[in-house]
């Protein structure tokens, strides 16, 4: 019993991280209908910025965890957001009126550029950050115990907060209304006076910011990363976005949680060798039953 509960905890934290990254994929797809393959690498860049931020803060003699974490989050989110903006500006905006395939190739190119740029500028070695927050809460269940580390609690808290704020922004604010309008019909939105280029830029920045949140949290939790770390987690987050219905914000979060939970439960209760096989079979199954994902709306052909 304690084991099943523990796996649920493991899956929830993993899933919330997938969800955060999946938001970047799903929002970009929703608004301009492209899959931003460089998104996993934006996450990777944010892991490096996290380490640099921690190094800068500790260099100035700041030792207390709350200040370091807030400072790191602030710095990383700002710099990664800027990366998101620049990537859109140089790799996607010039191709706005080209075919979807051109943008897709541009995204793959961007992904390779980011990987190689980080590899050359930061070195190809594994990097690590020191542990900042240790300790855990334990509940005894039957003979055993279920534990959640403070870091994992922090991950859950920050990712729920991030998703909550984002949902509020999209649903309730003027910016959100502009995003939704652009998503529904870009041409009509621009006729009505919305600067759609600006909205698209904003969406890229939001996606990068969410990836940066995940980057900070995961880097602090696992401590290890390299220039290739965005690949696997990017694929998983993309899967989560498709699972939940690409283009749908709650879908990305739901997809992330389902993927995280299914991986943890399968690895923990059956076999970790085949956990990815299981996750992707689940994806295939869901797409057979619901081709546009769990919460996705079927695409209406515009005539």
């Amino acid at each position: 019993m304690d084991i099943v509960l523990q796996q649920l905890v493991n899956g929830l934290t993993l899933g919330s991280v997938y969800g955060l990254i999946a938001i970047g994929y799903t929002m970009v797809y929703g608004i301009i209908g492209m899959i931003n393959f460089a998104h996993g690498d934006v996450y990777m860049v944010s892991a490096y910025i996290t380490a640099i931020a921690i190094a800068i803060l500790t260099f100035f003699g700041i030792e207390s965890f709350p200040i370091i974490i807030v400072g790191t989050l602030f710095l990383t989110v700002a710099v990664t957001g800027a990366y998101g903006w620049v990537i859109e500006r140089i790799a996607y905006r010039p191709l706005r009126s080209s075919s979807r395939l051109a943008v897709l190739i541009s995204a793959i190119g961007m992904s390779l550029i980011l990987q190689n740029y980080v590899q050359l500028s930061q070195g190809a070695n594994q990097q690590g950050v020191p542990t900042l927050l240790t300790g855990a809460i334990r509940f005894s269940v039957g003979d055993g115990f279920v534990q959640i580390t403070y870091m994992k609690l922090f991950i859950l808290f920050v990712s729920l907060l991030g998703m909550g704020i984002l949902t509020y922004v999209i649903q309730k604010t003027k910016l959100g209304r502009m995003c939704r309008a652009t998503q529904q019909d870009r041409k009509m939105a621009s006729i009505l006076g919305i600067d759609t280029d600006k909205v698209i830029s904003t969406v890229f920045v939001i996606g990068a910011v969410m990836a940066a949140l995940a980057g900070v949290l995961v880097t602090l939790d696992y401590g290890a990363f390299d220039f290739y770390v965005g690949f696997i987690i990017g694929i998983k987050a993309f899967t989560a976005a498709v699972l939940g219905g690409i283009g749908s914000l709650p879908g990305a979060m739901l997809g992330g949680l389902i993927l995280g939970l299914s991986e943890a439960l399968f690895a923990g209760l059956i076999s970790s060798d085949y956990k990815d096989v299981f996750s992707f079979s689940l994806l295939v199954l869901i797409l057979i039953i619901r081709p546009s994902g769990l919460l996705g709306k079927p695409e209406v052909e515009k005539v």
Partner: protein
Amino acid sequence: MSNAVIRKTLISLAVAGAATLAQADVVIGVAGPHTGAYAAFGEQLWKGAEKAAMDINAAGGINGEMIKLVKADDACEPKQAVSIANRLVDSDDALAVVGHFCSSSSIPASKIYEEAGVIMVTPASTNPTLTDQGLPNVFRVCGRDDQQGDVAASYIVDKLNAKRVAVIHDKDTYGKGLADAMKATLNSYGVKEVMYEGLTRGEKDFNALITKIRSVDADVVYFGGLHSEAGPLVRQLREQGSKAIFISGDGIVSDEFVSVAGSPEYVDGVLMTFGAPPTSYPSGKKVIQEFRDSGYEPEGYTLYSYTAMQVAVAALANNNLDPIKGAEWLKSHSIDTVMGKKDFDDKGDLTVSDYVMYEWDGQGKYNVVE
């Protein structure tokens, strides 16, 4: 600078240029993961080979010809290993190759070197298949995973008296091969593992797997794989409150293991099998001192790489630069190296295996377990 000085410099440059033209270089490839997650090992290989080549060149080269090293990066990916092996033999005309690092790269590349008649001396690939293929040109200056697995299994049974052993591997040629070798010996002692599972290389979250290790109540976790996964694995194991003893092989013998694990406290008490300290041989004293004087600690496979270079050079130097004859010659001659005398058997393995158990301490250093 006066005109006379410039003229003198130009003349001496011209003379130096003519001197290099007069002698053809002997090209030796250094193949390994020079980039990627395992680049720390690539650096060890390169540092060792580079130093060996410099020392040999300074002493007159191979029968008067200078060694020219070519760096070949396989990133520990089998496909890339094959393509760089082809490049080394086709366009670089290498006569010998020091490398590769990962067994999964060495095995496919070895066939290409065999077809091209090039000597291959690996400093680090321990998977038994590499030499069991029966290729005449393949040598290694390290041990084999079946020997390494034996040492680990005997230690688990005799010294640790452990009954509940969880065996984890990274599904790669080296990691799984090592885990399987250890498991076979363990089973032959009558101890059955309580768990045998693989994880995915490149992932960082192993919490689900660790909860499972906790649920089977393992005393010992044996991991076949490399430090980039071993680091997060041991850290998350400790974070989940498991006190199981963590044992791995020579895939974690790098200081990076500590930084990847997050801090030295997590690697405290981790055991690993590795060859007898490469820095302990009297014949290597001078080279080690020179490494340290230059500010580089020759850890892990650095001296193995130096040794591999010496072996390849000895084979070429004594056989008029004929790699095929050289490979034949190696099997019947002892080579003096910085790691003592080395003898090879017919398969290209060392005749003596010297695996011992090391323990990592709370300062992030490793020492032989007495």
